[in-house]
């Protein structure tokens, strides 16, 4: 039963990834405006206060992402948006797992610094 569920989840993930692939293609030529991007939050059941906080955090992360090198950005987005495993990222972009980890670590240091400094 568990493996069936796993297959179903993976299939669903693949489906959304391919849909998002269209989105990445669409936005690849246009610079992302952090201000605009932070508006896109699922409404959920959170309070307006939490929404405002989340919006602010998203804006900060976008700002950091824009400042990353291309490779760091790719690794960061694949890890934290596409939720890919390290070995999957390494295979996808043709890097060793160690290099992927190093890029991700550098990106996370910047995110941490930016978000930590704002608190």
């Amino acid at each position: 039963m568990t493996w069936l569920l796993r297959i179903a989840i993976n299939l669903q993930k693949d489906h959304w990834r391919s849909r998002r692939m269209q989105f990445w293609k669409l936005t690849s030529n246009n610079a992302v405006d952090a201000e605009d991007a932070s508006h896109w939050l699922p409404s959920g059941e959170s309070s307006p206060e939490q929404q405002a906080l989340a919006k602010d955090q998203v804006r900060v992360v976008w700002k950091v992402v824009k400042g990353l090198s291309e490779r760091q950005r790719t690794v960061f987005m694949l890890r934290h948006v596409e939720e890919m495993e390290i070995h999957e990222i390494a295979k996808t972009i043709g890097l060793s797992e160690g290099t992927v980890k190093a890029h991700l670590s550098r990106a996370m240091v910047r995110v941490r610094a930016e978000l930590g400094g704002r608190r």
Partner: protein
Amino acid sequence: MSFEEKNRLNEDEQIELALRSFRDSVHAWSEQEFSKARTIRRSRWDAFWRVLANPVLGWTLASALVVTSVGVPVTVHHQRELVAARNAQMLRQQLLEKQAAQQEAVAMSDDELLSHVDSDVAQAAPDAMEPLASLMSDSSSQ
């Protein structure tokens, strides 16, 4: 748990939350963008290739191409052979006519020669026979 550890845990939690919000934001944004009605601009070439993609038309065009590429050279070759045969026949005809004319000319000159010889033979008389010939001509006049 020390204050520093607590602080660090809190920070990690905040970062985790920020990253989750970021992920949700990108997903929501991409979903919204993806479900937007989009206008697709098609070039004239797209229409051309789409028409060509029709299997019936494709087969028809391929057949026409094959027939043309085989039929045209065969027809041209046949035409050339016909013209060459006609030319050869004309040349043969001309040659025959020329030969006939030459034969006729040769035949006429033979006749002329014979008549010339006849007249020469008829008129000329050896010197020794000249008095007799004059006698014959005198008696014939009398």
